């Protein structure tokens, strides 16, 4: 960082009343509040402040489902922020159609986003009617099994190589007083776990028939019944993990209180911050060690249409900074997610991230459920899954029937 940029950033933070001439304040809302996430946001803010503008942090605690309604009502209510995080996919679709979002096509062309952003489906999710409305920042995949090596040592069994091994090891873990599977109580976690089982145990074809073609018959069929049986096993293994937030559940794995957790690659940030080492302290199994496919959902920044010209300019600068290779490396290393471009050097990445990059390189990627179905369908699934995982009296068959209904009416 050069001295002028430092001075500008300094001026922006200290001499607020006079800084207006040099820097534009841009409020950025997001829901990154856990340790690893906050550190990653810090990198992003640093990169933006270095351009002479000022990042005004608008973190909203309590996960995306709490934060999104606040963001959306601010945008529709006429009090838009400078930029906001959404999962790329269909969450902001209607806001764009209503003309509330800024068109970033010019910035994208200047930065050659079409050529550098890999996989292309990320940019497709940002594109509506040929115009680009969001800047993807990272790729997150759900299909990871995090295991505590210490817990398995204590239970006297080998560290599992895949999901089936973990299921087999569950009785031994229970005997040693260890929770076999950690699962937070929030609905989206149960839902994500289920989708992961669908891809990793059922394979790409089953996943695409259910979520792309939205075929209710397959959703109620024998292939899917296997997934529900596995989900019932997971329910038994997770019984007794009385935590709510995902990072509390990750913490159970971190401290060896639980054997494993199915959680997206953002869990990696927690291991990183705790100073744990992949391979010796913990083990990560992409695709649950079975079908190594990753979904390429993730986060993107959207920029509400503002009247203030200065701020609009600052929005463009932020959009460019997000896709910038340097920011990509700094941000994603801290966050534990994968970068959205393949031309960056991630030598500093740890084993788990390298595994992820390798799968990405092989092209074993699928669109995430967020990209495929509407928020409404996701919510119905969440309702079903959270009920199923909390209440052992619901049979897999009954849950599957309701699931088939949801898929049948999905959009």
């Amino acid at each position, binding site marked *: 960082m050069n001295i002028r940029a430092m001075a500008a950033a300094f001026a922006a933070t200290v001499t607020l009343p006079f800084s207006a001439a040099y820097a534009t304040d841009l409020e950025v809302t997001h829901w990154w509040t856990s340790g690893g996430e906050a550190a990653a946001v810090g990198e992003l803010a640093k990169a933006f402040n270095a351009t002479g503008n000022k990042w005004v942090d608008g973190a909203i605690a309590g996960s995306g489902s709490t934060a999104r*309604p606040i963001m959306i009502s601010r945008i529709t209510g006429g009090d838009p922020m400078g930029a906001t995080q959404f999962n790329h996919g269909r969450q902001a679709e209607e806001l764009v159609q209503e003309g509330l979002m800024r068109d970033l096509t010019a910035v994208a062309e200047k930065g050659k986003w079409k050529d550098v952003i890999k996989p292309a489906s990320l940019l497709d999710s940002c594109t509506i009617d040929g115009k680009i409305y969001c800047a993807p920042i990272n790729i997150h995949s759900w299909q990871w099994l995090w295991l505590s090596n210490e817990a398995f040592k204590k239970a006297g069994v080998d560290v599992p190589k895949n999901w089936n091994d973990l299921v087999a090891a569950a009785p031994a873990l229970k005997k040693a007083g260890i929770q076999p599977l950690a699962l937070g*109580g929030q609905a989206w976690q149960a839902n994500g776990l289920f989708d992961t089982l669908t891809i990793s145990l059922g394979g790409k074809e089953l996943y695409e028939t259910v979520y792309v073609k939205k075929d209710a018959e397959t959703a109620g069929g024998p292939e899917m019944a296997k997934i529900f049986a596995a989900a019932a096993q997971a329910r038994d293994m997770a019984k007794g993990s009385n935590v709510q937030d995902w990072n509390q559940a990750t913490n159970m794995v971190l401290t060896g209180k639980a054997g494993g957790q199915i959680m997206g690659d953002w869990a990696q940030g927690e291991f990183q911050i705790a100073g744990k080492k992949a391979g010796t302290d913990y083990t990560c199994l992409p695709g649950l060690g079975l079908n190594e496919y990753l979904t390429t959902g993730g986060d993107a920044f959207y920029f509400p249409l503002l009247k203030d010209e200065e701020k609009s300019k600052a929005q463009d600068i932020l959009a460019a900074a997000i896709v910038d290779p340097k920011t990509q490396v700094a941000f994603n290393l801290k966050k534990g997610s994968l970068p959205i471009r393949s031309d960056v050097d991630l030598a500093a990445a740890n084993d788990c991230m390298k595994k992820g990059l390798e799968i990405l390189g092989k092209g074993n990627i699928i669109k995430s459920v967020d990209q495929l179905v509407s*928020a*409404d369908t996701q919510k119905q699934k969440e309702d079903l899954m959270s*009920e199923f995982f909390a209440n052992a009296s619901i049979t897999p068959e009954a849950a599957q029937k309701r699931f088939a209904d949801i898929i049948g009416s999905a959009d």
Partner: protein
Amino acid sequence: MAAHAPTGRPNQLFRNLNAKIASIPMMLVALVIFLGGTLWTVFYSFTNSRLLPRLNFVGLDQYERLWASSRWIISIQNLAIYGILSLIFSLVIGFLLAALMDQKIRFENAFRTIFLYPFALSFIVTGLVWQWVLNPEFGIQSVIRSLGWTSFAFDPLYDPDIVIYGILIAALWQGTGLVMCLMLAGLRGIDEDIWKAARVDGIPMWKTYLLIIIPMMRPVFITTLVIIASGIVKVYDLVVAQTSGGPGNASEVPAKYVYDYMFQAQNLGQGFAASTMMLLTVAIIVVPWAYLEFGGRKRG
């Protein structure tokens, strides 16, 4: 017209003109915001609006989906259990506390303050406090276990079958103090002579309360009932703070369904349909009651 200004009977419209002008803002708020907002919501509940309201009518589809949703059914059941029990318990406990308080005890002020104090807390704080109290690893269960009863189990918030009672306990703890205060005010309003007359006639105290005092306190009971009932229908923050609807869907309530579907699922139509059903439920209970209560008085 000006020359023939009526001098005999003043125009009804202009009587108490000052008072009428003063109440215009309130009337506008009631008409435009409450009534207008209600009609707008009901109207749009027949559309398939998603994130933003759109005029694309789908008839009763939203209602069909609503009543087919197991989460909504659970919400309604929870509200019924919570509503009936919290009504009964807060009235009974509130009245008993007030009656005990009315026995000319010492330190009445101190007791009154203690009982009313929880009411000063918001439902969010109440919910968080009771989340900790009822947490099996830190709360009551662990305290009792550390005293020696190691098999003692009390974790309502983690048991889908009884979680709603865990919420009820917190709500009663928070709200009974207010009911007690209202009841106490009602008891203090009873003429001392009535007590004396009852004593002269040799009526036992419990009978005096049951047959004389309570019927005389009817207005106080109605006020209390309205306050408790409106609190029941809108219960939301307590659930969010204590269990966020969990485990699973076991402690969901209708107000939370409305919020979740309007904002998280980005399905306004579904949320509107649910809130219209809430309005309808309230109307079904309130309208006949109001008719009996106020309509009857006019005739008599």
